[in-house]
Structures are given as C-alpha cells and as structure tokens.
C-alpha cells in the first residue's frame, strides 16, 4: 500500500481526456438520435404496416437485443473488411450503436404507440390528418411525454456504456484516451478516476439538458436525479 497518487501528470493530459469526453458525447448523441429514428420507424411499421414488415422488424429486434453490442461492433469492424467494406472505428461505433439503440427504442416506442388514446387518434383522423401527420402531431409528442424517463435513461446507457466499447477497436473516446495515456506512464488509477469523474459530469450535463428539453418541448416534469 505505498502507491502515491500523482495527479500532476494527469493534469498535463487533461485536454486529451477532454477531447475523449467530447468524442464520447458526439458518439452517444449521434447513436441515440439515429436509434430514435429507427425505433420510431420500426414501431410505426409494427403498428400500421403489413404483417410481413412487422415480422421483419421482430427479427431485427430479437437479433439485436439478444446479441452483445460488443459483438455487433466487432462484426462491423473486423467482419465487414472480409467482404471489402472498411469503415473507421468511429463509424463502426456509431453504426453499431445506432442499430443497437434502434432495436431497444423500437420496443420502448412501440409501447408509446399502443398507449395513445384511440379517441385522440380518431379526432385527428376526422379533422383530416393523414397517418404521417397523426404520428408527427399526436403520437410523437405523446411518446416523448409519457415515456420520457425511459428514453432519457436509455440515452445515458448509450452514452456511458455503449460508447466505451469503442476503446476496444481503437476509438479515442474517453475510455480509449484513458487507456492510451495509461499505457504510456502506467498512472492507471489517476487516469481512470479522472475519466470516471468525467463520465459523471457528462451524464449530469446530459440529464440536465434532457430535463430542460423535456420541460420546454413536452411539458415533462423531468427530474435531473
């Protein structure tokens, strides 16, 4: 037990960690919104589309939710080059996490589709709204409001747990940068405590941002903690 913490080195590399945190944030945001679009589309298909397409959606959801995100991203990064498709690590993380989030968000949003009051949709229909307009003006706001906590939680999951998989295929997001720096001077404990704190700060900022967005756009009385 004679380990001496030396935060001096770590402070020197602080901006490198900040870069990693920014990349983490970008990857998380892109994957979440990409996944939200896929989830909305798939939930709409399951609700209104023909049965065949609904079954295709089921396959997608079951396949993704029953395999680890790590394997999915490995497949994109190491598997696809075998057939001549070579994507950067960042792109593999974004695409992999987007597909992953899309499957979970399909389930979450499907619950939202099913819980809209039928009378509200009929009112929308009788005042001349098309199916797409009903989704846009009635269903999406309803989903955003009623399952807001589930969506916000899921964003945090993607942001913290999802993106860190990137480290394994050499993406310099926060975890990746912490690993890169530690392997140079072995200050593992220092780098990783700082990285952990940065994750907490990121999550905190994201939660506040989401809560404000929810209050402003959807009148959700979202709590930050």
């Amino acid at each position: 037990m004679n380990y001496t913490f030396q935060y001096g080195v770590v402070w020197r590399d602080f901006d490198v960690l900040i870069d990693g945190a920014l990349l983490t944030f970008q990857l998380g945001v892109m994957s979440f919104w990409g996944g939200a679009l896929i989830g909305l589309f798939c939930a709409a298909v399951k609700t209104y589309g023909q049965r065949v397409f609904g079954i295709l959606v089921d396959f997608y959801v079951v396949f993704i939710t029953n395999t680890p995100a790590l394997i999915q991203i490995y497949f994109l990064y190491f598997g696809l080059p075998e057939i001549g498709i070579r994507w950067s690590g960042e792109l593999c993380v974004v695409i992999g996490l987007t597909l992953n989030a899309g499957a979970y968000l399909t389930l979450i949003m499907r619950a939202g589709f099913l819980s809209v009051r039928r009378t509200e949709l009929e009112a929308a229909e009788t005042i001349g709204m098309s199916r797409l307009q009903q989704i846009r003006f009635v269903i999406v706001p309803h989903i955003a409001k009623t399952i807001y906590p589930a969506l916000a939680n899921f964003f945090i999951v993607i942001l913290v747990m999802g993106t860190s998989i990137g480290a394994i295929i050499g993406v310099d997001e926060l975890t990746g940068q912490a690993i890169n720096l530690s392997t140079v001077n072995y200050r593992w404990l220092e780098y990783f405590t700082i990285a952990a704190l940065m994750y907490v700060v990121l999550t905190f900022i994201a939660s506040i941002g989401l809560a404000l967005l929810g209050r402003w756009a959807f009148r959700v009385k979202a709590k930050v903690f």
Partner: protein
Amino acid sequence: MPHLAVEDLRASYGALEVLRGISFSVEKGELVALVGPSGSGKSTVLRVLMALNPPSSGRVQIDDISIDYGKSGSVRAARDRMAVVFQQYNLFQNMNVMDNVTLAPRKIKKWPVAEVEENARALLAKVGLTDKHDAYPDELSGGQQQRVAIARALALKPEILLLDEVTSALDPELVNEVLDTIGELAADGMTMILVSHEMGFVREVASRVIMMDAGEIIETGTPAELFDAPKSQRAKQFFSKVLRH
C-alpha cells in the same frame, strides 16, 4: 334538395349488423336530434358519416355530392364538410387550447396563420374561453374541454356539426354551459345532428327528432309529436322511460 341525405345506410361490427337500413335527411340550418336506447346505433351513424366505420351499403349525399366511403378523395370531402365532437374528451393532450383549435386549419388546410388565429380567438370567445388560450386540456374542467372540442371542430368551418352525447360525461353542473353553446350555434343557423339524452334540451332546440332502436329508425317528427304523442309502441315505451323525470 336536402343538405344531407342518408339513404338505406347499413353497417356492421363483424357479424353484428348495427345499422339496418337508415334513411333520413337534414335541411340547411336544421338541428336534428338522434335519440334512442343505448346500443341502438346512434354513435355508429355519426361514425359512418365521418368515415371512422365503413358502411356496408347505402348512399350519403351532401348537397349534390355523393360520398363514396371507399375513396380517399371522397372521404376527404366528407370530412371537409362535416365535423364531429364525441362524448369522451378527445383534445390533443400535448397541445394547449389555441394549438388544439388551430392545428388542423394551419397544418392540414394550410390556411393563412393570421386568419386562422383570428378565427380561433373568435370561436374561443364564442364558447366562453377567452382566458384559456394557453391552458392545456388537463388544466381544464370537462365542460371547458368539450367547449374547446366544439371550437376545434368549428375552426374547420364545417357545414354540418355532429355532436355525440357531448354532455353525458360531464358533472351535472357543467352540462348547461355546453348546452348553452350548442343552443347559440343553433340560433346562428348551424346545421347539426345531435345525439343526446337531454330530452328537455332536445325539445327546446331540435327542429326534428329521429328515434332509433336496434339499428333502425322507429319514428321521426317534431319534438312535440314524438314526445307527447308517439305512434309506435317502442317509441311510447322509450319516451315514457326517458321523459318521466
């Protein structure tokens, strides 16, 4: 030529035929009341007219336009000319009063915003909700919500307004404010079909009453004719029950 003509209208839920050949007509500016026991098919008539349920056969004509409920263009024409308010409050919960009223004219009809908003303000004033523009449905009483729903329906400038038991989910003390609104619309010459159990109100405002039972029209006449001297046995039974108190 009547404003709205319905001829031999039939509709089913699965194997159950709930409208078994309904024929009636409505003149411009008339308020026709649709009464009858629970399950007789009153709501279904309105739902078929608004294309929420498909008819299995029959003809619906508005002025000289014949409505083909199998064709989307024709359905649009029906929904352009008619608007409906149902018993359950069906306002958009995620929008405030003003947005509820202006959404369809702005986003679906694409009418000029200034005109739409001016019209909406006038309508909300008419239903007595000038001070509630920014309120959300869950901040309103049931009676207020129904009045917003009426304003929302009128914002599309329908020629015929269909009202399906708009007061029956309301607390008794809120019923009158909604009936007053309907009474004013009738006085303004709005053509309406009113499904209602408020027989006193029907007697006051309806020009004609249609009594339905088991998917058929039993009797038609002025309120006085039906209420005071029903001809058929079934009408006698029904009115003796609903008019007793």
